[in-house]
């Protein structure tokens, strides 16, 4: 999101199939003085209510004004910082360079973040996992965020015939097109990234066997 370029038609939000976008309908920073009238002068910011300021707004991202769309940016400030850091050191982004805020906060380490165009990275490997699936993939929206399906009935000898067949189809499918996502991002090679999360909610084939969390 380039917040400063957004004029707020909200068309993107309508079209977002997963409805993750939110809109700044009002000026939620009025308290700290960033308004659209006389209050907008910087000197008044200091005089204004300090409540929000005490929450320590992140200086590395734009504090959104009124009338702009809002979206998770995959912590672009951290991504850019890591990219610049890696550039100074003359190397490529590696696993662990970018820790997104959600990843840092996740108490069960369920989130991985990294460079999906680097086949050796953890996320790329998890994207290639047979358990990996994207939300609403059938719409051809090519999500970069992937989830991992539950692990069920791990012992081969306990698998039902149905499960073995299913697994065979899934594996065949991944063998063909599983690595496609990274290819379109040459220009953004360094920031191509993705997530892989262990998902503990039900996937499509609810009726197959036991469920087990992959911790």
């Amino acid at each position: 999101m380039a917040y400063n370029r957004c004029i707020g038609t909200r068309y993107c939000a309508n079209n977002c199939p997963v409805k993750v976008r939110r809109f700044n309908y009002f000026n939620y920073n009025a308290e700290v003085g960033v308004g659209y009238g006389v209050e907008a002068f910087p000197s008044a910011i200091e005089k204004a209510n300090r409540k929000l300021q005490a929450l320590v707004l992140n200086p590395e991202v734009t504090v959104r004004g009124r009338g702009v769309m809002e979206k998770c940016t995959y912590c672009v400030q951290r991504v850019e910082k890591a990219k610049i850091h890696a550039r100074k050191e003359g190397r490529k982004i590696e696993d662990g360079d970018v820790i997104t805020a959600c990843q840092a906060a996740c108490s069960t380490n369920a989130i991985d973040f990294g460079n999906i165009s680097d086949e050796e990275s953890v996320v790329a490997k998890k994207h290639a996992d047979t358990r990996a699936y994207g939300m609403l993939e059938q719409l051809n929206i090519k999500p970069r965020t992937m989830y991992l399906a539950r692990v069920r009935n791990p012992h081969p000898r306990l698998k039902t015939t149905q499960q073995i067949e299913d697994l065979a189809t899934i594996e065949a499918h991944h063998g063909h097109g599983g690595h496609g996502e990274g290819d379109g991002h040459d220009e953004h090679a360094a920031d191509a990234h993705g997530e892989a999360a262990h998902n503990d909610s039900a996937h499509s084939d609810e009726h197959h066997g036991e469920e087990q969390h992959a911790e």
Partner: protein
Amino acid sequence: MSLAIPNGLDNTVERPGERAPLVLGNTNYHDITESVCQVAERKPSAGWVGGFLVAFALLQMLGLLIVYLIYTGVGVWGNRAPIFWGWPIVNFVFWVGIGHAGTLISAILYLFRQEWRTSINRAAEAMTIFAVACAGTFPGIHVGRAWLAFWLAPYPSLNLWMWPQFRSPLLWDVFAVSTYGTVSLLFWYMGMVPDLATFRDRSKNKYRRMIYGLLCLGWSGSSRHWMRYEKAYAILAALAAPLVLSVHTIVSFDFAVSQVPGWHTTIFPPYFVAGAIFSGFAMVLTLMIPARSMLNLEKLITIRHLENMCKIILATGSLVGLAYGTEFFIAWYGQVPAEQFAFINRAFGPYWWAYWTMVSCNVISPQLFWFKKCRTTPWIIVVVCIFVNIGMWFERFVITITSLSRDYLPSAWAYFSPTWVDWGMLIGSFGLFFTLFLLFCRTLPVINMAEVKSSLAKQHHMAHAAAEHGEAEH
């Protein structure tokens, strides 16, 4: 010089080998001038003054609400995730639809040589302009930062050096609606120039004469001018005809190009255009029927005109009904679960009331026009047309809001409820429309005198020729 048409003749009856007259009464050219000019020249009636005051008050309310909106933020509307487009867009599409009839009557009926258009085209065109003005208001104020809406224009900014995104249907929409507004305005104005010259030449007052003189650009009625004028008019009609079809097509792209279930359908362009013509004609009739009696124009806008328009309403209304059916068929036939759900949800989901209001107003009520009695009785026409207007507003409501409120993920479903600002702006937009329309009635020629005279001349010529023919036979 009068024509031998008895006063009060029923011109809705077709006699073989003979054209029914389009102008009634003992009419000559001067009578036409008189009956049209009296509308603007006499003192305003109490009804006009009252109507204008009400409309103007509503316009003020719209203005104040816009100020409030821009000062506070677009959250004053009922738009909430996931319904990011609410009433403003419903109103926009509704008004754009209304704005189709005028240019359609002027352009397409002109190209098809439908003489009966001459009495109604001016007012219908004016209505088009005013409806487009109402429509243009909404997307302008709908964006979150209205003061930056000029970023949509492809102007060279020395500061940013950024260009708009031509692959987005929203930008097509900007171009379509602004082009449509501009061309309609040119078309309307150009058609009015000879009549403005008539107004000039009848002016008793120096300033009136000066103002109309300026507006009519020194029109003298020279045959050379008329020839180029007619050519230009024909060309503009030929250009406006595809334009009028394209506008609602492109507006429908805003929806059809997206991937919201219920929006993403290829039927939208023709369906929107049919709906637009339908609602536009309904609005023209809603206005014309009271206006013709209040402004004493019954001889010029005859029952035959009304009947013809009713036939078009019947046709387009049935087309719209067909489109509703087709949507359901395609949803079933396409076998996309999300799409199927969207349509079942429309008819039987939480907005069932809106859907069935739409269907009954748009598809069922115009079926009355199969009966000649209904299409020739003005009050029945008005009632049906008001229902059609309501129905067409609900059509846009159903498309925009039911589709958005329930799309792919049930975790992101919601129910829309409008705020008082939504209501105020809908009503205020009618204030804008009627203020402009009432001003138009008082200051500009409401009927295209030159064209009516021209068709009268043709009638006369034909009558003359028939008489001569008859004489020769005897």
